[in-house]
């Protein structure tokens, strides 16, 4: 029953960070070195590629992707995308000339931004490596020396294209091809920044690697591209966080994340998405998982106007395991259209989906799931559980589960619940002295605990605090 000293210290520290979380929405007044004019055309693509001094094949790929983006219609399912004005967005904003590996060298204004978000402190404490993206470019990237020595690569994706062209070309666009969907095509056309990770055979990265994404400019499109390759028998945990100031105009974030988990390897990918309420967040995330390997997506969506994101796992080798755990929080004017996709393509594979959502003040959550067991994939086991909590009468939650099971030996379990905060629970907590706000946020946090407790502790505490702020309305955004 004793709380370790470390935990106590963190608890105290976090309670002092209340202000930090309230102030995620601040703006930084900074002059970029290059900003593309509004709108999107081949000239802009060429300019991005020229500025990055890319190889020819990448420019060709970008141009092809742009055509596909223009050709593909907007999806008619999911959230309302009709209000995105693609012609007014800035598709590439370069904040500084060169990526830095020393924090001191980051331009003052940008450094202040991340200082306020607590990024460099976190790095010293519990991370093996850190990246920070401001607008379109990674402005900082670092990795522990010891890991570099072992051959671990943790770079901005742009740097990786230059430094490791062979391995880059081997994997880029293979998990999520440019033709995959409209927003994956858009990302492929204008991608910039993101993290590239390669973990060599039998190498374990014991502390997490983290990248923080910040949109600062108005009408900004951020299109980072992340590629993670965990070679045989290796393991890595990657964490991404994000935030932006609030503007009356809309911004767009359309990322693509590709992950390859080779035989006996393990990858955990954790997201804490806290975009401001003017950001459309349309992201494609997919992992290929081979024999006896394991993939876990831990996906927390607290912010954005509309999120459409369905992390996917392809179980391609025998005994592969996949797990997708998610938490979505939708309040006023927010729609979290999230979900999970699992493809059992090989025998003896297993999967688990746990999706929890909280809706408040007209907020809307949709769960969209796909579970597929292909013919010939014998003895697969999957468990899907979706729980929605409605905090008030006006909120909404929908579930759209799809299951395609082509194999008789498959074991599939599915449960879905929608619950409300009960009067009895509120009365119980209030009868002990908690205010209604405190009681509600306690119940909501309790509902989310199963997901939150899997986050590294520092994030778990931050997320608890964030939910508390959202629930009690003591929030300046």
């Amino acid at each position: 029953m004793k709380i370790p000293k470390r935990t106590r210290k963190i608890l105290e520290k976090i309670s002092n960070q209340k202000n930090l979380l309230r102030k995620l929405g601040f703006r930084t007044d900074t002059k970029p070195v290059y900003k593309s004019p509004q709108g999107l055309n081949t000239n802009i693509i060429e300019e991005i590629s020229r500025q990055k001094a890319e190889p020819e094949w990448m420019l060709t790929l970008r141009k092809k992707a742009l055509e596909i983006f223009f050709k593909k219609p907007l999806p008619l399912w999911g959230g309302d995308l009709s209000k995105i004005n693609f012609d007014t967005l800035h598709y590439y904003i370069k904040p500084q000339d060169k990526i830095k590996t020393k924090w001191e060298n980051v331009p003052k204004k940008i450094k202040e931004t991340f200082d306020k978000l607590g990024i460099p402190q976190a790095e010293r404490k519990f991370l093996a490596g850190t990246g920070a993206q401001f607008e379109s470019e990674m402005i900082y990237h670092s990795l522990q020396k010891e890991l570099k020595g072992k051959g671990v690569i943790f770079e901005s994706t742009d740097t990786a294209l230059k430094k490791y062209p062979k391995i880059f070309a081997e994997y880029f666009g293979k998990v999520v091809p440019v033709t995959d969907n409209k927003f994956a095509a858009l990302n492929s056309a204008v991608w910039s920044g993101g993290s590239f990770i390669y973990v060599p055979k039998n190498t374990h990265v014991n502390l997490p690697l983290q990248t923080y994404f910040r949109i600062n400019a108005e009408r900004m499109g951020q299109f980072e591209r992340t590629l993670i390759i965990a070679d045989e028998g290796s393991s890595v945990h990657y964490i991404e966080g994000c935030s932006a100031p609030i503007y009356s105009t809309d911004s767009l974030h359309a990322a693509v994340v590709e992950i390859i988990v080779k035989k006996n390897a393990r990858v955990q990918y954790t997201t804490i998405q806290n975009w401001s309420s003017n950001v459309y967040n349309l992201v494609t995330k997919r992992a290929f998982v081979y024999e006896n390997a394991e993939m876990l997506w831990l996906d927390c969506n607290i912010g954005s106007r509309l999120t459409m994101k369905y992390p996917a796992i392809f179980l391609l080798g025998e005994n592969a395991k996949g797990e997708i755990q998610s938490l979505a929080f939708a309040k006023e004017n927010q729609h979290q259209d999230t979900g999970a996709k699992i493809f059992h393509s090989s025998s003896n594979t297993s999967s688990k989906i746990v999706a929890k959502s909280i809706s408040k003040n007209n907020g809307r959550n949709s769960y969209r799931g796909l579970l597929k067991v292909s013919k010939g994939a014998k003895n697969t086991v999957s468990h899907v559980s979706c729980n929605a909590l409605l905090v008030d009468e006006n909120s909404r939650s929908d579930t759209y589960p799809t299951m395609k099971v082509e194999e008789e030996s498959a074991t599939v379990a599915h449960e879905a619940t929608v619950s409300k905060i009960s009067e009895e629970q509120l009365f119980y907590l209030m009868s002990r002295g908690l205010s209604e706000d405190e009681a509600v946020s306690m119940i909501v946090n309790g509902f989310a605990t199963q997901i939150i407790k899997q986050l590294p502790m520092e994030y778990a505490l931050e997320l608890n605090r964030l939910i508390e702020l959202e629930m009690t309305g003591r929030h300046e955004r």
Partner: protein
Amino acid sequence: MDTLEIIALRAETNKTEILKGINLKIRSGEIHAIMGKNGSGKSTLCNVVMGHPKYKITEGKIKLNGKKIEKLPANKRANLGLFLAFQNPTEIQGVTLNNFLRLAKNTNAKAQNKKAKHISPSEFLQTISQSMDLLEMDKKLAGRSVNEGFSGGEKKRAEIMQMAVLKPRIALLDEIDSGLDIDALKTVAKAIKRLHKQTKCGILLITHYQRILNYITPDFVHIISNGKIIKSGDKKLAQKLEKHGYEKFVKEPA
């Protein structure tokens, strides 16, 4: 000295009147037992006094130390030192007993005295640990979700454990004896007596059976029927009731 006064209290739920004019005064150090059949209104009385939003007070007053509290939400009443041990404590997923009770303890302390020192998690572990010892509880329960998967007996022990932590001025104990085996009943009764002696709190003990009164001696016994107190007396009244049954009193209202 603290005093809870219930004055000509009438209350309804779903347009059905359940309390039909209750008068009762409980002072620090006193133990009042309220006995009555099922459906007589005894649990409703506890819930109305604590401020359950399901009930509407149509007439009468509730005062704590002279201050009218019948319009206050439950948490403000708790802040003033009122406590209810529930007959059927509800389960709350993912909220640990330890966390929630620490927040409650700190909130009440702050409400009573703005300068009250914040109790740190480590200090609180001592407090809850002692209170759990008093109830002979498995300490692991402190880290579990509130009442989730607790046995009937564990839930009742946990209610009195919370009373021990919060140290209320007036405690309403709603059928704390129901569903307890004899050993558990002895433990719970012993803990209540100990707390009563330590804190000099006033206690309103709601019970269906006389059994618990063998372990906790009341100063006053009231019989409630059809939303009214029909007879009051000392501990002998409970014994009479046990002997003759409720019918005798219901037929011959005092």
